[in-house]
């Protein structure tokens, strides 16, 4: 079964990992500090902002795809970059989906850190920046979970990935869009096979991250 396909499963898998990895990284780099700031500061509209963030957990990926599509279509405002139908567009669309997740889960995690710990940190002499970093470290398990959930969302993304990537063989074809194509072709056993690869790869990534957590590297 693995032989009778013109694309390479390995290449498709690597691209899936690359796109999802970059999107998770970007989404975390933006979402985690943002979540820490929102979670640890008091300001007018904080409650509303939190609600909006949590609501965006359910942000339909197709809309993210549409937004990126319209922005980067040649006819669109950012068309001259020529990003549509490249992995970059897919990364951007998926990053949009990851940001609410990493932000929101970080907000929850830092909020959950006991008040007494936050007070202790401050009373021990930490300034603003130091206390945010220390609370983040106390909430680290939750924060890493946020990144892992973000990754899960990316690796499973199909609609937006197809829309802005175009499923171009050898360039923007990832596991999920390949599965969709195989389903359309009626080759259900291939689709299932790719699905198994997808699950396996996702699980391998999670196990690795868990391992790093155990060893306290993360």
């Amino acid at each position: 079964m693995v032989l009778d396909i013109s694309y390479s499963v390995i290449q498709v898998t690597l691209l899936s990992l690359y796109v999802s990895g970059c999107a998770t990284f970007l989404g975390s780099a933006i979402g985690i500090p943002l979540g820490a700031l929102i979670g640890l500061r008091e300001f007018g509209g904080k409650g509303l902002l939190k609600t909006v963030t949590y609501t965006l957990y359910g942000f339909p990926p197709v809309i993210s795809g549409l937004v990126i599509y319209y922005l980067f279509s040649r006819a669109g405002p950012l068309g001259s970059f020529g990003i549509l139908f490249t992995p970059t567009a897919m990364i951007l669309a998926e990053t949009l989906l990851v940001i609410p997740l990493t932000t929101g889960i970080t907000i929850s995690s830092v909020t959950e850190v006991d008040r007494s710990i936050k007070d202790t940190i401050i009373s021990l002499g930490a300034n603003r920046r130091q206390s945010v970093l220390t609370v983040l470290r106390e909430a680290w398990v939750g924060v890493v979970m946020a990144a892992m959930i973000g990754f899960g969302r990316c690796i499973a993304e199909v609609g937006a990935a197809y829309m802005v990537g175009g499923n171009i063989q050898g360039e923007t074809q990832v596991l999920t869009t390949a599965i969709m194509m195989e389903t359309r072709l009626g080759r259900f056993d291939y689709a299932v096979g790719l699905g198994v690869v997808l699950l396996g790869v996702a699980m391998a990534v999670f196990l690795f991250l868990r391992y790093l957590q155990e060893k306290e590297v993360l």
Partner: protein
Amino acid sequence: MNQTQKILIAVAVVAVLVVSVAAGLVVTQKKGSLLLATTTSTQDSGLLEYLLPVFEKEYNCEVRVVAVGSGQALEMGKNGDADVLMVHSPASEAQFVKDGYGTNRTSIMYNWFVVVGPDSDPAGVKNSTSAVDAFERIYDNGTAGKAKFVSRADNSGTYTKELSLWASVNSTWTKTNVSEWDSSWYLQAENGMGAVLDMCEEKNAYTLSDDATYYSRVEQELIPHLNITLTGDAKLKNQYSVILVNTTLWPHINKTLAKDFLDWITSQAGQDVIKSYERYGKQLFTPNAPGYTTQAIQLGTSAVVTSAVPDKTRPGPPPCPG
């Protein structure tokens, strides 16, 4: 966080950046590239994987293929998101060119639409004399509750063809009317061709399909109770064309390479490649670019025809299965 961890993170960040840049460079090719927008059925037939590498090798370039619905392919052409189009929706194509979005619209090949139906053939399509007659029978039996039809009901070339056939039966049957037909017999699937065929299998219904998708489904033994009940009628000819996207509107397009592609695919060489593509034990596409000839082979004579033969005098389509 100790030193080791800091170093590991720094390395990871650098690695990601390097890989991103490298990947970006790969995509913005050093050699020429074209983005070809085509339909899913064209890609699914497997023709492009067979055809394009020949062109890519000869011209040392890359053709990137995005397969979407006909309507979207044309939209992509309008927006400059594609460089070349390969579609099969003549009316829309004509409008596209008329509106100034594309140039050099040229026929390249055709295949057949087929009217697919259940073994029992409740509407007696096998006995029909033409495609229009077949559709009339389906309508009459459908409204009488004896037969069903599943429609693509999307912006695909197949749906466009289906609508034109309904309009040929009765000129008042516009898209608006047709879409309001009773769903007890006329099912609007809004889905891909493969899925629609699967539905016909489930519901013992008729549909209009392209032959390649039908054969593909048959090969995978997914539709054991469906047969081709009619094909070969001139009205069922599915004509493919290549259109170049207007490079005045979209100067970023590699004009030379796009023209090369058109020239090649309509040349003897390119057309021969199309003819030689076989799948499901059949030649799936019949090349018919202007100037291409297969006269000698079709007539079964030993005469070698070397001059250009215009389309009109070519032999007619094979007879309808009785």
